[in-house]
Protein backbone atom coordinates (compact mmCIF):
# COMPACT_ATOMS: atom_id res chain seq x y z
CA UNK A 1 0.00 0.00 0.00
CA UNK A 2 1.15 3.51 -0.80
CA UNK A 3 1.43 5.87 2.18
CA UNK A 4 -1.28 8.22 0.88
CA UNK A 5 -3.83 5.41 0.84
CA UNK A 6 -3.46 4.58 4.54
CA UNK A 7 -5.59 5.90 7.38
CA UNK A 8 -4.25 8.37 9.93
CA UNK A 9 -4.14 5.72 12.67
CA UNK A 10 -2.15 3.35 10.44
CA UNK A 11 0.26 6.16 9.57
CA UNK A 12 0.63 7.16 13.22
CA UNK A 13 1.63 3.56 14.02
CA UNK A 14 4.26 3.61 11.28
CA UNK A 15 5.57 6.99 12.45
CA UNK A 16 5.84 5.73 16.03
CA UNK A 17 7.70 2.62 14.92
CA UNK A 18 9.94 4.86 12.82
CA UNK A 19 9.13 2.80 9.71
CA UNK A 20 8.43 6.06 7.89
CA UNK A 21 9.06 9.74 8.43
CA UNK A 22 6.55 12.53 8.21
CA UNK A 23 8.60 13.95 5.34
CA UNK A 24 8.08 10.68 3.38
CA UNK A 25 4.35 10.91 3.98
CA UNK A 26 4.03 14.54 2.89
CA UNK A 27 6.10 13.92 -0.18
CA UNK A 28 3.95 10.90 -1.16
CA UNK A 29 0.75 12.89 -0.64
CA UNK A 30 2.08 15.84 -2.67
CA UNK A 31 2.91 13.49 -5.51
CA UNK A 32 -0.53 11.89 -5.34
CA UNK A 33 -2.30 15.26 -5.50
CA UNK A 34 -0.05 16.38 -8.36
CA UNK A 35 -0.90 13.21 -10.31
CA UNK A 36 -4.63 12.97 -9.73
CA UNK A 37 -6.07 16.35 -8.91
CA UNK A 38 -6.11 17.66 -12.47
CA UNK A 39 -8.88 15.05 -12.96
CA UNK A 40 -10.67 15.21 -9.60
CA UNK A 41 -10.26 18.91 -8.74
CA UNK A 42 -10.78 18.27 -5.04
CA UNK A 43 -8.52 21.18 -4.16
CA UNK A 44 -8.60 24.86 -4.96
CA UNK A 45 -5.47 25.25 -7.02
CA UNK A 46 -4.39 28.04 -9.31
CA UNK A 47 -2.19 25.82 -11.42
CA UNK A 48 -1.30 22.17 -11.84
CA UNK A 49 2.37 22.58 -10.88
CA UNK A 50 3.98 19.74 -8.95
CA UNK A 51 3.09 20.07 -5.25
CA UNK A 52 6.02 19.78 -2.91
CA UNK A 53 4.44 19.16 0.50
CA UNK A 54 6.38 19.28 3.73
CA UNK A 55 5.31 19.02 7.37
CA UNK A 56 4.68 22.53 8.76
CA UNK A 57 4.17 21.70 12.43
CA UNK A 58 6.82 20.43 14.83
CA UNK A 59 4.46 20.08 17.82
CA UNK A 60 4.36 16.71 19.44
CA UNK A 61 0.92 15.32 20.02
CA UNK A 62 -1.49 12.56 19.06
CA UNK A 63 -1.68 13.81 15.46
CA UNK A 64 2.02 14.58 15.03
CA UNK A 65 3.27 14.22 11.48
CA UNK A 66 -0.19 13.83 9.93
CA UNK A 67 -1.53 16.23 7.26
CA UNK A 68 -5.13 17.50 7.42
CA UNK A 69 -7.06 18.95 4.49
CA UNK A 70 -9.40 21.85 5.21
CA UNK A 71 -12.54 23.15 3.51
CA UNK A 72 -12.20 26.63 2.02
CA UNK A 73 -14.65 28.18 4.54
CA UNK A 74 -12.60 27.43 7.68
CA UNK A 75 -10.18 30.24 8.56
CA UNK A 76 -6.49 29.36 8.37
CA UNK A 77 -4.14 32.16 9.39
CA UNK A 78 -2.27 33.58 6.42
CA UNK A 79 -3.65 30.90 4.06
CA UNK A 80 -6.28 31.83 1.46
CA UNK A 81 -9.81 31.17 2.75
CA UNK A 82 -12.25 32.27 0.08
CA UNK A 83 -15.39 30.15 0.46
CA UNK A 84 -14.87 29.47 -3.25
CA UNK A 85 -16.44 32.87 -3.89
CA UNK A 86 -15.22 35.71 -6.06
CA UNK A 87 -16.30 38.14 -3.34
CA UNK A 88 -13.65 36.76 -0.94
CA UNK A 89 -10.91 36.55 -3.53
CA UNK A 90 -7.48 36.76 -1.94
CA UNK A 91 -8.74 36.75 1.66
CA UNK A 92 -6.05 35.63 4.10
CA UNK A 93 -7.54 35.35 7.59
CA UNK A 94 -5.63 37.16 10.36
CA UNK A 95 -6.38 34.28 12.75
CA UNK A 96 -6.95 30.51 12.91
CA UNK A 97 -10.34 28.95 13.49
CA UNK A 98 -10.47 27.17 16.86
CA UNK A 99 -10.49 23.76 15.13
CA UNK A 100 -7.29 24.69 13.27
CA UNK A 101 -5.61 25.83 16.48
CA UNK A 102 -6.64 22.55 18.14
CA UNK A 103 -5.28 20.49 15.24
CA UNK A 104 -1.99 22.38 15.35
CA UNK A 105 -1.78 21.89 19.13
CA UNK A 106 -2.29 18.15 18.54
CA UNK A 107 0.67 18.11 16.16
CA UNK A 108 -1.13 17.96 12.80
CA UNK A 109 0.05 19.93 9.76
CA UNK A 110 -2.57 21.96 7.88
CA UNK A 111 -2.38 21.71 4.07
CA UNK A 112 -2.04 25.14 2.49
CA UNK A 113 -4.20 24.20 -0.44
CA UNK A 114 -7.86 24.19 0.65
CA UNK A 115 -10.62 21.86 -0.50
CA UNK A 116 -13.23 22.92 -3.04
CA UNK A 117 -16.85 23.65 -2.08
CA UNK A 118 -20.06 25.23 -3.25
CA UNK A 119 -19.76 29.00 -2.85
CA UNK A 120 -20.41 29.81 0.85
CA UNK A 121 -21.53 26.16 1.22
CA UNK A 122 -24.66 26.90 -0.86
CA UNK A 123 -25.24 23.70 -2.77
CA UNK A 124 -25.30 19.93 -2.88
CA UNK A 125 -22.90 19.22 -5.74
CA UNK A 126 -19.79 21.46 -5.48
CA UNK A 127 -20.74 22.89 -8.88
CA UNK A 128 -21.34 26.37 -7.41
CA UNK A 129 -17.64 27.05 -6.89
CA UNK A 130 -15.95 30.00 -8.52
CA UNK A 131 -13.05 27.61 -9.19
CA UNK A 132 -15.19 25.12 -11.14
CA UNK A 133 -16.66 21.77 -10.10
CA UNK A 134 -15.03 18.85 -8.30
CA UNK A 135 -15.44 15.43 -9.94
CA UNK A 136 -16.53 12.26 -8.17
CA UNK A 137 -13.53 9.89 -7.95
CA UNK A 138 -15.85 6.90 -8.61
CA UNK A 139 -17.13 8.41 -11.86
CA UNK A 140 -15.53 11.62 -13.03
CA UNK A 141 -18.71 12.62 -14.90
CA UNK A 142 -20.63 12.68 -11.62
CA UNK A 143 -20.72 15.26 -8.84
CA UNK A 144 -19.04 14.45 -5.52
CA UNK A 145 -22.03 15.88 -3.63
CA UNK A 146 -21.79 19.07 -1.66
CA UNK A 147 -21.18 21.46 -0.31
CA UNK A 148 -18.00 19.86 1.13
CA UNK A 149 -17.45 17.92 -2.11
CA UNK A 150 -13.75 18.77 -2.27
CA UNK A 151 -13.03 17.31 1.18
CA UNK A 152 -15.05 14.16 0.37
CA UNK A 153 -13.42 13.64 -3.04
CA UNK A 154 -9.94 14.30 -1.64
CA UNK A 155 -10.35 11.58 1.02
CA UNK A 156 -11.97 9.14 -1.45
CA UNK A 157 -9.21 9.59 -4.05
CA UNK A 158 -6.41 9.28 -1.45
CA UNK A 159 -5.46 12.90 -2.13
CA UNK A 160 -6.01 13.51 1.59
CA UNK A 161 -5.48 11.42 4.70
CA UNK A 162 -8.54 13.01 6.27
CA UNK A 163 -10.31 16.34 6.10
CA UNK A 164 -12.60 18.82 7.81
CA UNK A 165 -15.81 20.09 6.27
CA UNK A 166 -18.94 21.86 7.44
CA UNK A 167 -22.54 20.66 7.47
CA UNK A 168 -25.54 23.01 7.48
CA UNK A 169 -28.12 20.73 5.84
CA UNK A 170 -26.11 17.67 4.84
CA UNK A 171 -22.93 19.20 3.43
CA UNK A 172 -20.71 16.57 5.08
CA UNK A 173 -22.94 13.49 5.00
CA UNK A 174 -24.29 13.70 1.44
CA UNK A 175 -20.82 14.10 -0.18
CA UNK A 176 -19.44 11.39 2.15
CA UNK A 177 -22.20 9.08 0.83
CA UNK A 178 -21.59 10.04 -2.82
CA UNK A 179 -17.83 9.47 -2.46
CA UNK A 180 -17.90 6.36 -0.26
CA UNK A 181 -16.17 7.76 2.83
CA UNK A 182 -17.07 8.29 6.49
CA UNK A 183 -18.56 11.73 7.26
CA UNK A 184 -19.73 12.90 10.67
CA UNK A 185 -21.80 15.96 11.54
CA UNK A 186 -21.46 16.37 15.31
CA UNK A 187 -24.13 17.67 17.67
CA UNK A 188 -24.69 21.43 17.37
CA UNK A 189 -22.37 22.93 20.00
CA UNK A 190 -19.93 19.98 20.17
CA UNK A 191 -17.30 21.63 17.93
CA UNK A 192 -16.51 25.35 18.02
CA UNK A 193 -17.68 27.37 15.03
CA UNK A 194 -15.23 30.19 15.76
CA UNK A 195 -13.47 30.88 12.46
CA UNK A 196 -16.01 28.98 10.34
CA UNK A 197 -17.30 31.56 7.88
CA UNK A 198 -20.98 31.61 8.81
CA UNK A 199 -23.76 30.41 6.49
CA UNK A 200 -26.64 29.68 8.90
CA UNK A 201 -25.50 30.15 12.48
CA UNK A 202 -28.19 28.00 14.13
CA UNK A 203 -27.49 25.05 11.79
CA UNK A 204 -23.77 25.13 10.88
CA UNK A 205 -21.42 22.59 12.41
CA UNK A 206 -17.84 21.62 11.54
CA UNK A 207 -17.27 17.88 11.10
CA UNK A 208 -14.97 15.20 9.76
CA UNK A 209 -14.22 13.17 6.61
CA UNK A 210 -12.18 10.01 7.16
CA UNK A 211 -11.37 6.68 5.52
CA UNK A 212 -12.71 4.69 8.47
CA UNK A 213 -14.63 5.04 11.73
CA UNK A 214 -11.52 4.83 13.95
CA UNK A 215 -10.06 7.90 12.25
CA UNK A 216 -13.40 9.66 12.73
CA UNK A 217 -13.18 9.05 16.49
CA UNK A 218 -9.55 10.23 16.60
CA UNK A 219 -10.23 13.42 14.65
CA UNK A 220 -13.31 14.14 16.79
CA UNK A 221 -11.17 13.83 19.92
CA UNK A 222 -8.93 16.53 18.49
CA UNK A 223 -11.53 19.10 17.41
CA UNK A 224 -14.34 18.74 19.99
CA UNK A 225 -14.86 20.79 23.09
CA UNK A 226 -16.02 24.03 24.62
CA UNK A 227 -14.64 27.31 23.28
CA UNK A 228 -15.25 30.67 24.98
CA UNK A 229 -14.95 32.26 21.52
CA UNK A 230 -18.16 30.52 20.38
CA UNK A 231 -21.05 31.29 22.70
CA UNK A 232 -23.03 28.38 21.22
CA UNK A 233 -20.37 25.81 22.00
CA UNK A 234 -21.41 23.59 24.87
CA UNK A 235 -19.40 23.06 28.02
CA UNK A 236 -19.83 19.32 28.54
CA UNK A 237 -17.10 16.73 28.95
CA UNK A 238 -15.66 15.34 25.71
CA UNK A 239 -15.34 11.56 26.03
CA UNK A 240 -12.50 9.64 24.40
CA UNK A 241 -14.39 8.69 21.26
CA UNK A 242 -12.05 5.80 20.48
CA UNK A 243 -13.55 4.17 23.58
CA UNK A 244 -16.74 3.60 21.54
CA UNK A 245 -15.03 1.34 19.01
CA UNK A 246 -16.17 -1.85 20.70
CA UNK A 247 -17.52 -3.93 17.84
CA UNK A 248 -20.62 -4.64 19.90
CA UNK A 249 -24.23 -3.72 19.04
CA UNK A 250 -26.11 -6.46 20.90
CA UNK A 251 -29.49 -5.16 22.02
CA UNK A 252 -29.10 -1.70 20.42
CA UNK A 253 -32.53 -0.38 19.46
CA UNK A 254 -32.71 1.05 15.94
CA UNK A 255 -35.65 3.10 14.66
CA UNK A 256 -36.36 2.98 10.91
CA UNK A 257 -38.50 6.01 9.98
CA UNK A 258 -41.21 4.96 7.54
CA UNK A 259 -41.34 8.46 6.02
CA UNK A 260 -37.80 7.97 4.63
CA UNK A 261 -38.63 4.87 2.58
CA UNK A 262 -41.20 6.22 0.18
CA UNK A 263 -42.09 6.02 -3.48
CA UNK A 264 -39.64 7.77 -5.71
CA UNK A 265 -36.43 6.90 -3.93
CA UNK A 266 -33.83 5.09 -6.00
CA UNK A 267 -34.57 1.33 -5.92
CA UNK A 268 -30.93 0.27 -5.69
CA UNK A 269 -30.32 2.66 -2.78
CA UNK A 270 -33.42 1.32 -1.04
CA UNK A 271 -32.35 -2.32 -1.46
CA UNK A 272 -28.77 -1.64 -0.33
CA UNK A 273 -29.88 0.26 2.79
CA UNK A 274 -32.45 -2.40 3.68
CA UNK A 275 -29.72 -5.01 3.40
CA UNK A 276 -27.51 -2.93 5.72
CA UNK A 277 -30.30 -2.85 8.30
CA UNK A 278 -30.61 -6.66 8.09
CA UNK A 279 -26.86 -6.86 8.61
CA UNK A 280 -27.13 -4.74 11.77
CA UNK A 281 -29.89 -7.04 13.01
CA UNK A 282 -27.69 -10.09 12.41
CA UNK A 283 -25.04 -8.37 14.51
CA UNK A 284 -27.51 -8.23 17.38
CA UNK A 285 -29.30 -4.90 16.98
CA UNK A 286 -33.09 -4.73 17.07
CA UNK A 287 -34.72 -2.70 14.30
CA UNK A 288 -38.30 -1.46 14.33
CA UNK A 289 -40.32 0.92 12.19
CA UNK A 290 -40.87 4.38 13.71
CA UNK A 291 -42.51 7.59 12.52
CA UNK A 292 -41.11 11.10 12.14
CA UNK A 293 -44.43 12.60 11.03
CA UNK A 294 -43.19 16.09 10.12
CA UNK A 295 -40.44 14.89 7.76
CA UNK A 296 -42.09 16.36 4.66
CA UNK A 297 -41.69 19.87 6.10
CA UNK A 298 -37.94 19.64 6.71
CA UNK A 299 -36.81 20.90 3.30
CA UNK A 300 -39.12 23.96 3.18
CA UNK A 301 -38.33 24.83 6.83
CA UNK A 302 -34.63 24.57 6.06
CA UNK A 303 -34.81 26.80 2.99
CA UNK A 304 -36.55 29.49 5.01
CA UNK A 305 -34.38 29.38 8.14
CA UNK A 306 -31.12 28.67 6.31
CA UNK A 307 -31.57 31.45 3.76
CA UNK A 308 -32.86 33.95 6.34
CA UNK A 309 -29.75 33.43 8.47
CA UNK A 310 -27.53 33.45 5.39
CA UNK A 311 -28.97 36.73 4.11
CA UNK A 312 -28.02 38.37 7.37
CA UNK A 313 -24.62 36.65 7.74
CA UNK A 314 -23.60 37.58 4.20
CA UNK A 315 -24.38 41.26 4.72
CA UNK A 316 -20.75 41.65 5.86
CA UNK A 317 -19.44 41.12 2.33
CA UNK A 318 -19.74 44.70 1.18
CA UNK A 319 -16.36 45.57 -0.31
CA UNK A 320 -15.16 47.47 2.75
CA UNK A 321 -13.12 45.22 5.03
CA UNK A 322 -11.95 42.38 2.80
CA UNK A 323 -12.31 40.73 -0.57
CA UNK A 324 -13.62 42.20 -3.79
CA UNK A 325 -14.57 45.85 -4.24
CA UNK A 326 -16.14 47.17 -7.41
CA UNK A 327 -15.55 50.90 -7.35
CA UNK A 328 -18.26 53.49 -7.61
CA UNK A 329 -18.58 57.12 -6.57
CA UNK A 330 -21.58 56.45 -4.32
CA UNK A 331 -21.34 54.17 -1.31
CA UNK A 332 -24.62 52.36 -2.01
CA UNK A 333 -23.68 51.73 -5.62
CA UNK A 334 -20.30 50.40 -4.53
CA UNK A 335 -22.16 47.91 -2.29
CA UNK A 336 -24.58 46.87 -5.02
CA UNK A 337 -21.98 46.46 -7.72
CA UNK A 338 -19.56 44.62 -5.45
CA UNK A 339 -22.25 42.17 -4.33
CA UNK A 340 -23.79 41.91 -7.81
CA UNK A 341 -20.45 40.93 -9.28
CA UNK A 342 -18.97 39.06 -6.32
CA UNK A 343 -21.77 36.61 -5.53
CA UNK A 344 -22.64 33.68 -7.78
CA UNK A 345 -26.18 32.70 -8.82
CA UNK A 346 -26.96 30.38 -5.90
CA UNK A 347 -25.68 32.90 -3.35
CA UNK A 348 -27.89 35.57 -4.90
CA UNK A 349 -30.90 33.23 -4.91
CA UNK A 350 -30.47 32.42 -1.24
CA UNK A 351 -29.80 35.99 -0.11
CA UNK A 352 -32.89 37.17 -2.00
CA UNK A 353 -35.07 34.38 -0.62
CA UNK A 354 -33.84 35.00 2.93
CA UNK A 355 -34.29 38.75 2.67
CA UNK A 356 -37.79 38.22 1.29
CA UNK A 357 -38.96 35.88 4.08
CA UNK A 358 -37.62 38.29 6.71
CA UNK A 359 -39.08 41.39 5.09
CA UNK A 360 -41.99 43.39 6.36
CA UNK A 361 -45.31 41.68 5.75
CA UNK A 362 -43.84 38.22 5.14
CA UNK A 363 -42.00 37.54 8.41
CA UNK A 364 -44.93 35.86 10.19
CA UNK A 365 -46.12 33.90 7.17
CA UNK A 366 -42.71 32.44 6.37
CA UNK A 367 -39.97 32.88 8.95
CA UNK A 368 -42.00 32.60 12.15
CA UNK A 369 -44.05 29.73 10.74
CA UNK A 370 -40.83 27.89 9.82
CA UNK A 371 -39.46 28.32 13.36
CA UNK A 372 -42.64 26.76 14.74
CA UNK A 373 -42.51 23.80 12.37
CA UNK A 374 -38.85 23.39 13.40
CA UNK A 375 -40.14 22.81 16.95
CA UNK A 376 -42.37 20.01 15.62
CA UNK A 377 -39.50 18.40 13.70
CA UNK A 378 -37.28 18.47 16.78
CA UNK A 379 -40.08 16.96 18.86
CA UNK A 380 -40.44 14.08 16.36
CA UNK A 381 -36.83 13.11 17.13
CA UNK A 382 -37.17 13.64 20.91
CA UNK A 383 -40.15 11.26 20.89
CA UNK A 384 -38.33 8.51 18.99
CA UNK A 385 -35.17 8.79 21.12
CA UNK A 386 -37.24 8.10 24.25
CA UNK A 387 -37.45 4.48 23.11
CA UNK A 388 -34.63 4.04 20.60
CA UNK A 389 -30.82 4.40 20.71
CA UNK A 390 -30.51 5.55 17.12
CA UNK A 391 -32.27 6.07 13.80
CA UNK A 392 -30.98 4.52 10.59
CA UNK A 393 -31.82 5.87 7.12
CA UNK A 394 -30.29 6.26 3.66
CA UNK A 395 -28.03 9.34 3.57
CA UNK A 396 -29.35 10.42 0.18
CA UNK A 397 -32.31 9.26 -1.94
CA UNK A 398 -30.02 8.66 -4.94
CA UNK A 399 -26.38 7.91 -5.67
CA UNK A 400 -24.21 10.66 -7.18
CA UNK A 401 -25.86 12.41 -10.12
CA UNK A 402 -24.23 13.73 -13.28
CA UNK A 403 -22.45 17.06 -13.38
CA UNK A 404 -24.88 19.59 -14.88
CA UNK A 405 -27.96 17.42 -14.28
CA UNK A 406 -29.56 19.67 -11.65
CA UNK A 407 -27.89 23.05 -12.10
CA UNK A 408 -30.83 24.57 -13.96
CA UNK A 409 -33.39 23.36 -11.44
CA UNK A 410 -32.51 24.64 -7.95
CA UNK A 411 -35.54 23.01 -6.32
CA UNK A 412 -34.53 19.59 -7.60
CA UNK A 413 -31.07 20.18 -6.16
CA UNK A 414 -32.57 21.20 -2.80
CA UNK A 415 -34.53 17.95 -2.61
CA UNK A 416 -31.34 15.89 -2.75
CA UNK A 417 -30.82 16.88 0.91
CA UNK A 418 -34.18 15.51 1.99
CA UNK A 419 -32.73 12.90 4.43
CA UNK A 420 -29.97 15.02 5.94
CA UNK A 421 -31.61 18.37 6.67
CA UNK A 422 -33.65 17.28 9.72
CA UNK A 423 -30.52 16.51 11.79
CA UNK A 424 -29.42 20.15 11.46
CA UNK A 425 -32.88 21.48 12.32
CA UNK A 426 -32.93 19.25 15.43
CA UNK A 427 -29.23 19.84 16.22
CA UNK A 428 -28.51 16.12 16.55
CA UNK A 429 -25.38 14.21 15.47
CA UNK A 430 -25.40 12.03 12.36
CA UNK A 431 -22.87 10.03 10.38
CA UNK A 432 -22.75 8.64 6.85
CA UNK A 433 -20.79 5.43 6.31
CA UNK A 434 -20.32 3.40 3.12
CA UNK A 435 -22.85 0.54 2.85
CA UNK A 436 -22.52 -0.77 -0.69
CA UNK A 437 -22.36 0.08 -4.38
CA UNK A 438 -24.87 0.41 -7.19
CA UNK A 439 -24.54 -1.80 -10.28
CA UNK A 440 -22.75 1.05 -12.03
CA UNK A 441 -20.21 1.21 -9.22
CA UNK A 442 -21.34 4.31 -7.29
CA UNK A 443 -21.14 4.25 -3.49
CA UNK A 444 -24.23 4.36 -1.27
CA UNK A 445 -24.26 5.83 2.24
CA UNK A 446 -25.97 4.68 5.42
CA UNK A 447 -26.98 7.44 7.81
CA UNK A 448 -27.04 6.84 11.59
CA UNK A 449 -28.56 9.53 13.83
CA UNK A 450 -28.65 9.74 17.63
CA UNK A 451 -29.86 12.13 20.31
CA UNK A 452 -27.81 15.27 21.18
CA UNK A 453 -24.28 14.33 22.27
CA UNK A 454 -24.92 10.73 21.21
CA UNK A 455 -21.77 10.61 19.06
CA UNK A 456 -20.55 7.60 21.05
CA UNK A 457 -23.64 5.57 20.16
CA UNK A 458 -23.23 6.49 16.50
CA UNK A 459 -19.54 5.56 16.43
CA UNK A 460 -20.21 2.28 18.19
CA UNK A 461 -22.81 1.16 15.65
CA UNK A 462 -20.84 2.53 12.69
CA UNK A 463 -17.70 0.73 13.81
CA UNK A 464 -19.44 -2.62 14.29
CA UNK A 465 -21.05 -2.34 10.85
CA UNK A 466 -17.80 -1.30 9.21
CA UNK A 467 -15.85 -4.18 10.77
CA UNK A 468 -18.49 -6.66 9.63
CA UNK A 469 -18.71 -5.41 6.03
CA UNK A 470 -15.44 -3.74 4.98
CA UNK A 471 -17.11 -1.50 2.36
CA UNK A 472 -14.69 1.23 3.44
CA UNK A 473 -11.75 -0.70 1.98
CA UNK A 474 -12.99 -0.31 -1.61
CA UNK A 475 -11.02 2.29 -3.58
CA UNK A 476 -11.89 4.04 -6.84
CA UNK A 477 -9.66 3.71 -9.89
CA UNK A 478 -8.73 7.17 -11.05
Amino acid sequence: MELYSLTAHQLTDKLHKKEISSTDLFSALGKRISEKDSRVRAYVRRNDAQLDLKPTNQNNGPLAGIPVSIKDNICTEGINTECCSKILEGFKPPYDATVIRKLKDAGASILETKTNMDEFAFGSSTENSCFGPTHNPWDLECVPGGSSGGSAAAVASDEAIWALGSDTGGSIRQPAAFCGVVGLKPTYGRVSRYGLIAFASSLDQIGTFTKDVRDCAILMNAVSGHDPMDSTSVDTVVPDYTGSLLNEVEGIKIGIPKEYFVEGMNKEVKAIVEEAIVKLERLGARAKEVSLPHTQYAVPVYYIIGTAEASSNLARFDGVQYGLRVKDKRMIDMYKKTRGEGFGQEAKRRILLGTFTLSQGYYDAYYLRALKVRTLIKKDFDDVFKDFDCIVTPTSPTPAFKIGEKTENPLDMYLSDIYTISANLAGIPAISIPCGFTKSGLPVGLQILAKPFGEETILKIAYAYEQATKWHLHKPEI
Partner: protein
Amino acid sequence: MALSKETVKYVADLSRIELDPQELEKLSLQLQTILGFIDLLNQADIEGIEPTSHILPLNNILRSDQIKESLTIERALANAPQKKDNFFVVPRVIE
Protein backbone atom coordinates in the same frame (compact mmCIF):
# COMPACT_ATOMS: atom_id res chain seq x y z
CA MET B 1 -48.04 33.12 -3.30
CA ALA B 2 -47.19 35.00 -6.48
CA LEU B 3 -43.87 36.79 -6.49
CA SER B 4 -43.72 39.70 -8.91
CA LYS B 5 -40.59 40.92 -10.64
CA GLU B 6 -41.11 44.23 -8.82
CA THR B 7 -40.94 42.44 -5.46
CA VAL B 8 -37.74 40.65 -6.46
CA LYS B 9 -36.28 43.98 -7.59
CA TYR B 10 -37.29 45.51 -4.22
CA VAL B 11 -35.74 42.62 -2.29
CA ALA B 12 -32.55 42.88 -4.38
CA ASP B 13 -32.34 46.56 -3.44
CA LEU B 14 -32.81 45.69 0.23
CA SER B 15 -30.04 43.10 -0.16
CA ARG B 16 -27.76 45.61 -1.91
CA ILE B 17 -27.32 43.36 -4.92
CA GLU B 18 -27.31 44.72 -8.46
CA LEU B 19 -29.05 42.38 -10.91
CA ASP B 20 -28.97 42.68 -14.68
CA PRO B 21 -32.36 42.32 -16.45
CA GLN B 22 -31.73 38.69 -17.48
CA GLU B 23 -30.75 37.71 -13.95
CA LEU B 24 -33.83 39.43 -12.58
CA GLU B 25 -36.00 37.51 -15.02
CA LYS B 26 -34.42 34.14 -14.26
CA LEU B 27 -34.21 34.59 -10.48
CA SER B 28 -37.85 35.74 -10.32
CA LEU B 29 -39.01 32.54 -12.02
CA GLN B 30 -36.80 30.32 -9.84
CA LEU B 31 -37.81 32.05 -6.60
CA GLN B 32 -41.43 31.69 -7.66
CA THR B 33 -41.00 27.91 -8.01
CA ILE B 34 -39.18 27.64 -4.67
CA LEU B 35 -41.81 29.68 -2.84
CA GLY B 36 -44.51 27.52 -4.41
CA PHE B 37 -42.84 24.50 -2.84
CA ILE B 38 -42.38 26.29 0.50
CA ASP B 39 -46.14 26.88 0.62
CA LEU B 40 -46.34 23.23 1.70
CA LEU B 41 -45.74 24.62 5.20
CA ASN B 42 -49.23 26.08 5.21
CA GLN B 43 -50.51 22.54 5.77
CA ALA B 44 -48.63 22.18 9.07
CA ASP B 45 -50.70 22.61 12.21
CA ILE B 46 -48.76 25.13 14.30
CA GLU B 47 -51.56 26.07 16.67
CA GLY B 48 -50.05 26.71 20.11
CA ILE B 49 -46.52 25.73 19.05
CA GLU B 50 -43.60 27.85 20.26
CA PRO B 51 -40.91 28.83 17.72
CA THR B 52 -37.41 27.29 17.90
CA SER B 53 -34.75 29.75 16.79
CA HIS B 54 -32.02 27.79 18.48
CA ILE B 55 -31.88 24.18 19.69
CA LEU B 56 -29.63 24.63 22.73
CA PRO B 57 -31.03 25.62 26.12
CA LEU B 58 -28.44 28.39 26.30
CA ASN B 59 -28.96 32.08 26.95
CA ASN B 60 -27.01 35.03 28.31
CA ILE B 61 -23.50 33.63 27.93
CA LEU B 62 -21.37 35.95 30.04
CA ARG B 63 -17.65 36.27 30.59
CA SER B 64 -15.55 38.35 32.91
CA ASP B 65 -14.68 41.82 31.70
CA GLN B 66 -10.96 41.34 31.22
CA ILE B 67 -8.69 43.08 28.78
CA LYS B 68 -7.12 40.53 26.45
CA GLU B 69 -4.96 40.67 23.39
CA SER B 70 -6.92 41.39 20.21
CA LEU B 71 -6.17 41.92 16.54
CA THR B 72 -3.75 44.72 15.85
CA ILE B 73 -4.94 47.52 13.56
CA GLU B 74 -2.40 46.42 11.00
CA ARG B 75 -3.73 42.87 10.87
CA ALA B 76 -7.35 43.98 10.90
CA LEU B 77 -6.65 46.19 7.89
CA ALA B 78 -4.47 43.69 6.06
CA ASN B 79 -7.26 42.50 3.73
CA ALA B 80 -8.86 45.91 3.10
CA PRO B 81 -9.42 46.76 -0.58
CA GLN B 82 -8.54 50.38 0.26
CA LYS B 83 -7.05 51.85 3.44
CA LYS B 84 -5.38 54.99 4.67
CA ASP B 85 -3.95 56.12 8.03
CA ASN B 86 -5.32 53.15 9.99
CA PHE B 87 -8.81 53.45 8.46
CA PHE B 88 -10.90 51.62 5.86
CA VAL B 89 -11.49 53.98 2.95
CA VAL B 90 -15.01 54.10 1.43
CA PRO B 91 -16.67 56.37 -1.12
CA ARG B 92 -17.90 59.69 0.21
CA VAL B 93 -21.17 59.20 2.11
CA ILE B 94 -22.15 62.83 2.84
CA GLU B 95 -22.37 65.06 -0.23
